[in-house]
């Protein structure tokens, strides 16, 4: 990653590009970043650096400024102080797919690409995310998962050196989310671009990232490398330990939550048991209800 791919997100005061100031082995370099909304600093003296090809997950409670940081890195928010260096080629996938409803899927994928890109380029990118057959569809006909994959294809077709993902799986159902997470993991391994994934899902962060950051009070309050072998599973004991530590850092009581999730899973088991046993017991329950209801109704 040569330094010349770095374009600075310029602050209005600076108004000029500061290129090539970062070390050669960084994809993102943030120093002393401050972003205030009406006097309240959402990001306060934040420092961050991401290596090329590194997958970083950014966790934090809602409202902690993690999405603001992503918007700053994307160049969508320039009302900032401090120095921010990002690759010139970067792409964003938002929580909502944000496809232009008036453009067919393949035109959405090519939107904003320089020159006169061929339709084939869009179809190739769509095939990568398993959507090659929907290239001519209108966005309104896509399911939530398909729209999100189209949005991902639109980001990837730009061949970014930095991919910014803003809770891209947040609105998906559990099954679709698992598939989408696997897809992102595969694509990242093929592309080798740096990824910043903003999420509030600790498990998602630990399944995908090389490094997990916790943001609090406008800065990176905690960070840990996730040196678990891939592919990762939730059942790995080290995974559980990391999750507990991160949850603790996020202000959720680690121990209690561990029990809570365990309790939840046993609850689910109990539910399942009741459900399967319910066929037998359920009719009984209904029968009792009807029997006990009928005298009252008759009376």
């Amino acid at each position: 990653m040569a330094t010349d791919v770095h374009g600075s997100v310029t602050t209005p005061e600076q108004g000029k590009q500061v290129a090539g100031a970062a070390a050669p082995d960084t994809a993102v370099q943030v120093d002393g970043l401050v972003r205030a909304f009406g006097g309240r600093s959402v990001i306060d003296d934040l420092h961050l650096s991401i290596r090329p090809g590194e997958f970083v997950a950014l966790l934090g409670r809602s409202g902690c400024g993690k999405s603001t940081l992503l918007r700053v890195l994307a160049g969508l928010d320039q009302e900032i102080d401090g120095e921010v260096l990002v690759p010139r080629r970067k792409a964003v996938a938002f929580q909502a797919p944000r496809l232009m409803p008036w453009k067919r899927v393949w035109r959405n994928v090519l939107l904003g690409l320089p020159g006169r890109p061929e339709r084939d380029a869009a179809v190739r990118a769509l095939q990568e995310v398993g959507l090659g057959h929907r290239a001519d569809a209108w966005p309104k006909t896509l399911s939530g998962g398909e729209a999100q994959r189209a949005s991902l294809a639109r980001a990837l077709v730009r061949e970014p050196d930095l991919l910014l993902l803003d809770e891209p799986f947040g609105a998906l159902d559990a099954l679709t989310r698992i598939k989408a997470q696997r897809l992102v993991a595969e694509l990242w391994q093929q592309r080798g671009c740096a990824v910043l994934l903003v999420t509030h899902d600790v498990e998602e962060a630990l399944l995908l990232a090389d490094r997990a950051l916790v943001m609090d009070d406008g800065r990176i309050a905690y960070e840990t490398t996730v040196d678990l072998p891939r592919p990762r599973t939730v059942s790995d004991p080290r995974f559980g330990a990391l999750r507990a530590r991160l949850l603790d850092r996020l202000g959720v009581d680690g121990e209690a939550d561990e029990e809570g999730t365990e309790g939840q899973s046993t609850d689910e088991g109990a539910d399942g048991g009741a459900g399967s046993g319910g066929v037998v017991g359920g009719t009984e329950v209904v029968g009792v209800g009807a029997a006990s209801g009928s005298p009252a109704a008759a009376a």
Partner: protein
Amino acid sequence: MTLDQAVARDAPVDVAAESTGPPSVRKGEETGVKSAAGAGRLELVRVDPVSARRWSVPRWVRRTVGPLALLVLWQALSASGVLEAGILASPGTIAATAGDLVSDGTLPSAMLVSLQRVAVGLVLGGVIGVALALASGLSRLGEDLVDATVQMLRSVPWVGVIPLFIIWLGIGEAPKIALISLGVAFHLYLNVYAGIRGVDAQLVEAGQSLGLSRWGLIRHVVLPGALPGAMTGLRYSLATAWLALVFGEQVNADDGLGFLMNQAREFFRTDVIVVCLVVYAILGLLADFLVRTLERLLLQWRPTFTGQ
């Protein structure tokens, strides 16, 4: 029914023993399909599909009955002399007059003149309205300069400026076209401006993140997003154009539909007046049909669009 079920389930022996039992139970049996009235069996009632139950007149036939009845009543009143020809001609007379007017070329040439006025006014007003809307919709400077002025002028009833237009522009084609343009421009301005300002900011941001230039954003995001508003504006402005045409041609004209009507008024030809009104109505319907077709072509991407 739940009560019957409950009773039946609660005391199956009773039901089996006294099949002529309590009235509530028997009532259920009468309306229900009799299942083998074994002990403890539920009684099932068939849910009859509506379509199978009764033969129904097609909807369009029912909808035509009202207007047809009105026509028949009108014809009957005219024939019996209750409705004099000097007040309102009979439908038969009107149809005959329409045939005459078409065959001697009066009506087609009048329609052509009127259509031309509407077309020119529509184009002129459309260009002005859309240009102003783009200026104030796309830039804040434009908004400050244009919007307040237009909003102020909008509160002037546009029909009220006819005398001024006559003084300024004489009594030829110019004041008529100016009147139509005025009505059209206001409606298009308001709707296109609202359409531009109503474009989803998230989509604009997505466009920015994709590296679109300012012009690219306008072309690929803002203008397509404003299209639904523009189509609404077009529909309103077409309706306004016909209205302006009627006003404009009533005041002073030596040709066109309005002239035909004025002339007919002088000779108490109510049949000709009604023919002209019908023509106005048909042209209005045609214009609406055109806009709908345009919408179907241009707005097929809209999730809310169900006009297929």
